[in-house]
């Protein structure tokens, strides 16, 4: 269950309380997020929509521990990340967050296998254990037969699948997807959304996704709209609490 009314829930995987983010640009202060509250449970699939500059990506960056808020707190699986040191936050990201970016962000000189292996190199897994994890992840995204291909030898959809395999290979607590279909045609985008849906339904993964595409957003269980840093309305098909 996703709540945005600020009512605390002990069972929530992600708890966001009074989240504020301000930037200073050229002497002007920009209030990107304003006292945002959010509760996300394990296995939820949440989509954030909103116009450019509404704070979607900033929210995702804050949830992923890539940035720090100006005020408020974020707690994920019991860890309050807003007061962690940079070093601790890096370690926390490696353990808990799987990122999927619009531009795939694969390393072009590494094969699909090596790209998926990157998060695992930070663990204490042996070579054979890493191999087993990578093969499973690539099988799941349907690219077991492309594991030794370089990104340039793959289509856009396949590259994003490799990026998803990289995001899930270390079994993170949740996935953060920033416009995962933004660079793809409709057919490939459908394929990617089917895959993400499968991760949620079959593997009970928690997914928080930013998108501009209403068709893609409809695939989520919960649709939240951000406007000028405030969650202003919910998707019509979602049972939500009061908007904060």
């Amino acid at each position, binding site marked *: 269950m996703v709540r945005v009314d600020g009512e605390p829930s002990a069972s929530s995987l992600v708890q966001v309380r009074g989240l504020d983010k301000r930037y200073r640009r050229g002497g002007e202060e920009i209030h990107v997020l304003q006292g945002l509250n959010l509760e996300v449970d394990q296995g939820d699939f949440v989509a954030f929509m909103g116009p450019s500059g509404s704070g979607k990506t900033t929210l995702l*960056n804050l949830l992923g521990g890539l940035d720090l808020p100006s005020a408020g707190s974020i707690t994920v699986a019991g860890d309050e990340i807003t007061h962690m040191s940079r070093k601790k936050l890096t*370690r926390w990201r490696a353990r808990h967050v799987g*990122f999927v970016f619009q531009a795939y962000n694969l*390393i072009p*000189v590494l094969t699909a296998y090596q790209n998926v292996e990157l*998060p695992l*190199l*930070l663990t204490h897994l042996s070579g054979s254990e890493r191999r087993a994890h990578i093969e499973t992840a690539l099988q799941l995204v349907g690219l077991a037969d492309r594991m030794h291909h370089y990104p340039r030898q793959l289509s856009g959809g396949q590259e994003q699948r490799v990026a998803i395999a990289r995001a899930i290979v270390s079994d993170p607590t949740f996935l953060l997807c920033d416009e995962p279909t933004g660079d793809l045609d409709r057919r490939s985008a459908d394929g990617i959304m089917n895959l993400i849906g499968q991760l949620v339904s079959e593997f009970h993964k928690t997914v928080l996704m930013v998108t501009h595409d209403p068709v893609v957003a409809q695939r989520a269980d919960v649709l939240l709209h951000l406007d000028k840093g405030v969650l202003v309305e919910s998707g019509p098909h979602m049972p939500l609490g009061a908007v904060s």
Partner: protein
Amino acid sequence: MKYAGLILANLLRRRTRLLLTLGSFAVALFLFGVLMVIRASFNQGLEVAGADRLIVINRVAIIQPLPLSYYQQIARIPGVTVVAFANWFGGVYQDERNFFPQMAIDVAHQRQTYPEFIIDNAEWQDFLKDREGAFAGAALAKRFGWKIGDRIPLRSSIYPGKWEFNLRGIYHGSRPQDDETQFWFQWDRLDEQLPPGRKGYVGWYVLRIADPADAVRIAKTIDDTFANSPWETTTETESAFAAGWIRQMGNIQFLILTIGSVVFFTLLLVTGNTMAIAVRERTAEWALLKAIGYPDAFVLALVLAESLSIAVVGGSLGLLMAKIFTLSGDPTRGLLPSFYLSPNSILIGMGLAFAVGFASGILPAAGAMRLRVVDALRRI
């Protein structure tokens, strides 16, 4: 080692650029190696100088002689163990360009004075028996293709007359830096052929002393002994004497240092620029690595590892080429007393390559380390 694949893949991503950067290091270190060989050659006298050897020359100039009668007086000074003497011959073999040092030596004490030269006993006996006999260094014999038994004619502007020698032996240095370009013949032969007024003079004395710490006292005693005589002396250690020769040739050290510094500074600029470009074009990758949990220090280490790998591989290649070049023979055909790249020079070269690799990589690496993921992602 699990990151070796990542480092290698990154290095190989732009192969032409990698080859050019490796080439820059290789050429710079090759040049460094050759400069070190030349420097060592000029400093060869210093490097081979025996700590227990003193040189006695005429106080006016080395070209002025000293009487042979000084021999016994020097030999009697306490602390002196061996005394030898020699004359510079200054001959020409076939052509003025074929320069090599020729000396009329005191055969009775030569081997005790210079024990670092390896001399075959049988060859030495043949040399002693033949008044026209001569001994040549191995490098000199190789330079002119001489073999034992060859007849070697020399012309001398200092000692007129017909000078021909029979090559009776070839000596070798026991250390790589030992001078193997000298030509020796018997001092008696020289003296016999001189007119009466020029007989009985030597160019310099070389003496060995029991205790190197006693060098100053012995040198002073010798110079005091011959003070106010027609042939006053200057006595100094062999290394001081060699350093004096080097000074006469100009500031070779400074010249070599200047050339070397310019080469390495240029290399630093080239490599630094290459690394800066390589780091900048991978901004998205640094952002990704940091986002998925790689620490800042890892990014720093990764860039430095790439930079140092190029430096070490390119540097090793250059020094290897320099070593092969020196092993293939002296291109000056024996003008330099030694042509040898020492292990010490190789180590210094590797150290310099490492330092340039580090210096060129540290700024881009620090930039990549400081990069904030959100800023980098925004730029993509």
